[in-house]
């Protein structure tokens, strides 16, 4: 059974500029032990999607419609008390900047115990034991000593491992990771990514890895979801999507990676900028920047699904069509 099933999720924000639809009918499934990457630019709605899964969308935002089923149980519309019981225990989240998410005034052990005691009543000794267990799992040396450390005494990579450890405390079925390595050094990034892969295998948790960086995600995730202006525009097995992208935006993302260009050659960019959510064109949101767009693209575009693959484009790139931005 799927760990998480999302169907037609719509999340909106009431702003001074009107109602903005940050998540516009997003659907996907997460399987246990599998790492799924959710890729998109800033403003694509990927972070809001993550928060929606945990029911943490702050006013003036709210989930308007759709369904989120965690282990078969519907989450949308449930009262806050019920959602709180599941947060951390069945579905956990890791944030981007560990220096901001850990309280500088409390010791690591204290913060971990708080997260543990939120869902279980345990003695101090049992709590410490469990904390040491997960700290070890994320690869922190001398975990017992680390319990008494303060956040500022640890390096960025260590802090993020602590954040991951906290997410693991209750053995959640789903872990949502929002840009967890963006604030870290490249070498540390690699370590964390490697550790994440091991953990997903060991614990069987489904991981949703949200990022704007296609390069890191592609090394880690087995499935890829590409998001643009609040909609999923392409999804599928990572290797397939990278080798054989169908949506021009995905193609553009792949091409903008520095590694795809020969040394000395100018880097490639997708022309134009991300659209403002208050001024979306009718139909395909990517049309204004797409070299293949025509009149038909002004009509709403459905997601074409073929088994495990899908794309939201009426002029998809095929194996025959090469680089559209040349």
């Amino acid at each position: 059974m799927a760990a998480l099933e999302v169907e037609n999720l719509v999340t909106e924000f009431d702003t001074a500029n009107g109602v903005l639809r940050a998540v516009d009918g997003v659907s996907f499934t997460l399987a246990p032990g599998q790492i799924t990457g959710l890729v998109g630019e800033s403003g694509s709605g990927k972070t809001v999607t993550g928060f929606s899964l945990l029911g943490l969308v702050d006013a003036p935002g709210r989930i308007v419609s759709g369904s989120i089923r965690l282990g078969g149980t519907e989450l949308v519309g449930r009262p806050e008390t019920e959602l709180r019981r599941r947060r951390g225990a069945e579905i956990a989240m890791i944030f981007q900047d560990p220096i901001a998410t850990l309280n500088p005034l409390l010791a690591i052990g204290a913060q971990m115990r708080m997260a543990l005691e939120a869902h279980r009543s345990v003695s101090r000794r049992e709590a410490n034991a469990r904390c040491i267990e997960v700290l070890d799992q994320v690869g922190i040396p001398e975990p017992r000593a680390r319990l008494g450390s303060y956040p500022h005494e640890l390096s960025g990579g260590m802090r993020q491992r602590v954040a991951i450890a906290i997410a693991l405390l209750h053995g959640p079925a789903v872990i949502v990771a929002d840009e967890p390595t963006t604030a870290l050094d490249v070498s540390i990034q690699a370590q964390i990514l490697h550790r994440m892969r091991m953990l997903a295998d060991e614990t069987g948790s489904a991981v949703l890895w949200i990022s704007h960086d296609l390069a890191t995600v592609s090394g880690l995730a087995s499935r890829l979801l590409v998001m643009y202006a609040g909609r999923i525009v392409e999804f599928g097995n990572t290797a397939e999507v990278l080798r054989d992208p169908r949506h021009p935006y995905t193609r553009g993302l792949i091409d903008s990676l520095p590694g795809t260009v020969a040394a000395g050659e100018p880097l490639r960019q997708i022309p134009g900028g991300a659209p403002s959510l208050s001024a979306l064109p009718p139909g395909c949101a990517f049309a204004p920047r797409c070299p293949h767009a025509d009149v038909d693209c002004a009509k709403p575009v459905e997601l074409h699904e073929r088994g495990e693959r899908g794309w939201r484009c009426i002029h998809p790139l095929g194996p025959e069509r090469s680089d559209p931005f040349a």
Partner: protein
Amino acid sequence: MSGYVLQRLLQAALVMVAMSAIVFVGVYAIGNPVDIVIPPEATQDIRAATIARLGLDLPLWQQYLIFVRNLFDGDLGRSFIYNEPVLSLIAGRLPATLELVLLSVLSATVFGIALGVYAGYRPDSVLAKAIMAVSVLGFSVPTFWIGLILILTFAVNLGWLPAGGRGQTVDLLGVAWSFPTLDGLRHLVLPAVNLALFKFAMMIRLARAGTREVMLSDTIKFARAAGIRESTILRRHLLKLISIPIITVFGLELGSTLAFAVVTETIFSWPGVGKLIIDSIAVLDRPVMVAYLLLTTLLFVIINLTVDLLFALIDPRIRARGAA
């Protein structure tokens, strides 16, 4: 940690020495100290004799050194006006000021923080907006004016509370305090409220600003994502995180409150140290002025020291920096 404490103590001592010199020189150097003691029509001989008797003919630095030496004997000089030792003058009136200030500060802080946290937690509620409106008034309106209004309303128009003076006192540990008696409390209410209002408003604003900022931070989001109960979050994350800016201002404002006690004591005819200093300043009774300023400085230094030590207790990053 002990390095940090030592460092702070040393700084405090230096400040005291520097301030004592500045205060002494400042007060005695400007104008002619002897003018208030002798009537203007006195002869030159009497003038010269008085100057010599009071030691005012010596060079200023010598006067300062004598002053400092006397300090170690517990002698703060003699008031020009009352012809009494300054120390006993001040000590006699200190309890009155202390009970007024302590009562004000405690009530202002407790209620101010409580209301401020609420206003920051639910900023859009009607109650929160009302609290903020009241705080602007408490913050802007001069203390003496509020005192007047309080007297006008509660003493003159409603007749519920006395318009001034201190109530009945009771002897505790050899000192006369008025708060244990009912009559004493009746007399304490208005001046304490008057004095507390400014600090109360300030605490509300601080607590609200701090709460709003913290509640929007990633730390709180992360805690919520971990499924921690709101009450636990408020208790263990919020209160600790806002305590640092609050304690900083608390320390500063404590001094301000002590200073404003001067105004309140004048309006309510409260027989404390504040009234003494106003009278002394008006007639330029320099020994009293110097002693009062030095005691105030000492108090400040102690307050600042305590605040710094509290910081080190709360924030592990400061402990680490201090030990380096």
